[in-house]
């Protein structure tokens, strides 16, 4: 019996309602580790290029890693992968909660879902036993209702459930996969893939985690983490105020996207800050399996126009920005209500908020009219607009039919210059971190295989003269000893982006929470990755070995995209980023397209990708032991 993992992958065919178990050797796990590493392996082997993301040929994977379920903070994550109906590129999204550890305890390291059921079903994995059941009676229900009903019907204590809501069923391209009805695989629209497969839910239950190789060392590492949260101000603030604690910082540095990225400052930011949330609507601090950080929020509003139920958790920073500053809304209750609706219907809060902000911007510029909206005026600062449009998007009603496609596709249909107001890369809307003030994000947003992502590299403030001692020491371990201005994108900054991108990719391959695990500011640093993997698996790994696995994951994603016809020209930022912002510390700031093109040249050379196509070269794939993918990029 291996340490840390099961050695078993569950492969389900929904078309035939059948399944098989694949047993894999240690060498497979040591090469791909878990998460999207394992997901991409099955997707690249099992899906042909050009597959319809909403057809039976799309392969949807849920994978944990060789360390998931072990007792330490930050291991409770699961990766979902498939072809994205939003981007047409690889889809990738991680979620936390208790589902990941339960999947591991149920006896599998990943579930690979092929085919398409003819009628709604749910999948049950109970201590190794697999069954597929009718879910017609759950179809149309919100996520919380689905969880409650299914849990009650199954009668299994400690069962954990991943599910879609009406948005996924209605094939909304912004649809999320939820678990606990408040943890989201939000990005890249994988909820619609599950909806297309007519897979309403996956319920997992297990009674036994795999053994740990060196339980004593792991326990020491876990204790070290738990006792050091309070001495790290960023972790301490994360525990007290949640991710929303960062909102004031973004505002003060001019990096809070406001009114569809017209500005980097929101005048009413104090109404929606982490401090405001903590002192008004916060009811409880929640956590994921075995995590001492407790960054999750539970909020409640019982009075006023926007009631909010604790069942659906509370808004993260990204959600507050997307429905708040993006839309010019300063009503925290309305934002929390928007968060509840998105979690209940299964919608990505970033993509949905950004799409609504784009629609408002278009309306205020006369590019979208009352004829398009069904007579509804759209204005920044109107909380009712976001609530009404979420309903319409989730149910594909009225104006929501158009917005359910995401802002980029909607702009293509509308035309009239509305494309110029879209803020997306590869059709995926930008998260709430501005490359204008954190310039390395301009590069990472452009080249990231699944669209603009803020969780794929370290941000610039960690690599400045003003960074903290902890950040400086940890980055030095990675050979980064030349801090830069946060607003430059030079060769050193590209090197920083690539090295930290690999570190974040280790986290995503090992399914680690990036708030606990990362290159610089987080609780655990680079050296802890090695100690932790050694303790759980017994493997004598090095950081270089883990970095290689991380690089493998990124290259596999780029190979997937190359097969789908993506090239260098798709690694492009939206026009809005090159237009000067107005007001505050970022007044007049913009990122010139030439600046990004120069950085891409440096980056492609550094990572070993073809300069003209931006795709991995055969030589690079061989270096990574991915010889089996060479034909994919050669043809």
């Amino acid at each position, binding site marked *: 019996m291996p340490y840390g993992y099961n050695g078993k992958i569950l492969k389900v065919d929904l078309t035939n309602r059948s399944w098989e178990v694949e047993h894999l050797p240690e060498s497979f796990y040591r090469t791909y580790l878990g998460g999207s590493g394992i997901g991409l392996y099955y997707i690249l082997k099992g899906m042909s290029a050009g597959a319809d993301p909403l057809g039976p040929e799309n392969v949807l994977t849920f994978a944990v890693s060789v360390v998931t379920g072990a007792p330490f903070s930050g291991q409770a994550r699961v990766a979902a992968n498939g072809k994205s109906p939003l981007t047409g590129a690889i889809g990738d999204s991680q979620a936390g909660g208790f589902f990941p550890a339960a999947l591991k305890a149920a006896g599998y390291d990943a579930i690979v879902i092929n085919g398409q059921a003819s009628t709604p079903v749910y999948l049950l994995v109970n201590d190794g036993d697999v069954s597929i059941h009718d879910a017609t009676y759950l179809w149309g229900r919100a996520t919380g209702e689905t969880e409650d009903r299914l849990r009650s019907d199954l009668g299994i204590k400690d069962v954990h459930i991943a599910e879609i809501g009406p948005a996924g069923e209605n094939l909304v391209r912004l649809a999320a996969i939820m678990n606990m009805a408040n943890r989201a695989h939000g990005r890249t629209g994988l909820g619609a893939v599950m909806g297309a497969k007519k897979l309403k839910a996956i319920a997992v239950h297990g009674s036994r985690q795999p053994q740990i190789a060196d339980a004593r060392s792991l326990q020491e590492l876990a204790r070290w983490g738990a006792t050091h949260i309070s*001495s790290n*101000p960023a972790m301490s*603030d994360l525990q007290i*105020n949640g991710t929303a604690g960062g909102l*004031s910082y973004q505002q*003060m540095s001019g990096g809070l996207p406001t009114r569809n990225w017209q500005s980097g400052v929101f005048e009413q930011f104090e109404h929606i800050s982490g401090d405001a949330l903590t002192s008004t609507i916060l009811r409880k601090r929640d956590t994921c399996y075995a995590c001492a950080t407790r960054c999750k929020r539970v909020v409640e509003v019982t009075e006023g126009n926007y009631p909010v139920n604790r069942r659906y958790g509370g808004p993260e920073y990204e959600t507050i920005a997307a429905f708040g500053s993006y839309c010019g809304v300063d009503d925290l209750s309305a934002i929390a209500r928007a968060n509840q609706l998105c979690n209940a219907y299964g919608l990505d809060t970033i993509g949905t908020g950004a799409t609504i902000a784009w629609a408002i911007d278009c309306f205020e510029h006369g590019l979208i009219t009352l004829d398009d909206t069904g007579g509804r005026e759209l204005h920044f600062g109107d909380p009712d607009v976001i609530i009404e449009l979420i309903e319409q998007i989730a149910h594909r009603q009225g104006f929501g039919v158009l917005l359910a496609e995401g802002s980029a596709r909607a702009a293509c249909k509308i035309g009239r210059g509305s494309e110029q107001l879209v803020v997306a890369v590869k059709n995926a809307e930008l998260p709430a971190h501005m490359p204008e003030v954190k310039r390395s994000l301009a590069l990472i947003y452009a080249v990231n295989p699944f669209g603009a992502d803020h969780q794929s590299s370290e941000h610039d*403030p*960690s690599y400045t003269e003003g960074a903290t001692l*902890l950040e400086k020491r940890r980055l030095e371990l990675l050979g980064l000893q030349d801090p830069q201005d946060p607003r430059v994108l030079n060769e050193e900054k590209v090197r920083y982006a690539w090295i930290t991108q690999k570190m974040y990719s280790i986290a995503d391959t090992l399914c680690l929470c990036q708030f606990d695990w990362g290159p610089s500011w987080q609780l655990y640093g680079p050296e802890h990755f090695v100690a932790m993997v050694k303790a759980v698996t017994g493997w004598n790994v090095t950081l270089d070995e883990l970095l290689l696995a991380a690089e493998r994951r990124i290259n596999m994603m780029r190979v997937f995209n190359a097969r789908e016809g993506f090239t260098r020209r798709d690694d492009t930022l939206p026009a809005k980023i090159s237009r000067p912002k107005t007001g505050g*510390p970022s007044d007049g700031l913009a990122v010139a397209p030439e600046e990004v093109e120069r950085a891409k040249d440096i980056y492609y050379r550094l990572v070993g990708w073809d300069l003209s196509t931006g795709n991995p070269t055969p030589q690079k794939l061989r270096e990574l032991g991915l010889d089996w993918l060479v034909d994919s990029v050669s043809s």
Partner: protein
Amino acid sequence: MDIKVRLHGVLQHYRPKTLGGEVFALDVPEHATVEEVGRQLGLPETWVCLTFVNGEACRKNQQLRTGDLVAFLPPARGGTLEF
């Protein structure tokens, strides 16, 4: 002289218990600097990331005038952890 202070995020725990409100008044020596005000409040030096006077970013050695509003922000990331 009297100034006004606003502590953000985790730094709010250093607000003097006798002083209420998000923005509170504080009596500081004439010509006190931002850094000296932080010290007077007991803010750990390495926990302060950004400082502002009347909404403008400032250096920690900036001298204050009567009625100024000083804001202290913790890092959104990073710390002083020894390892």
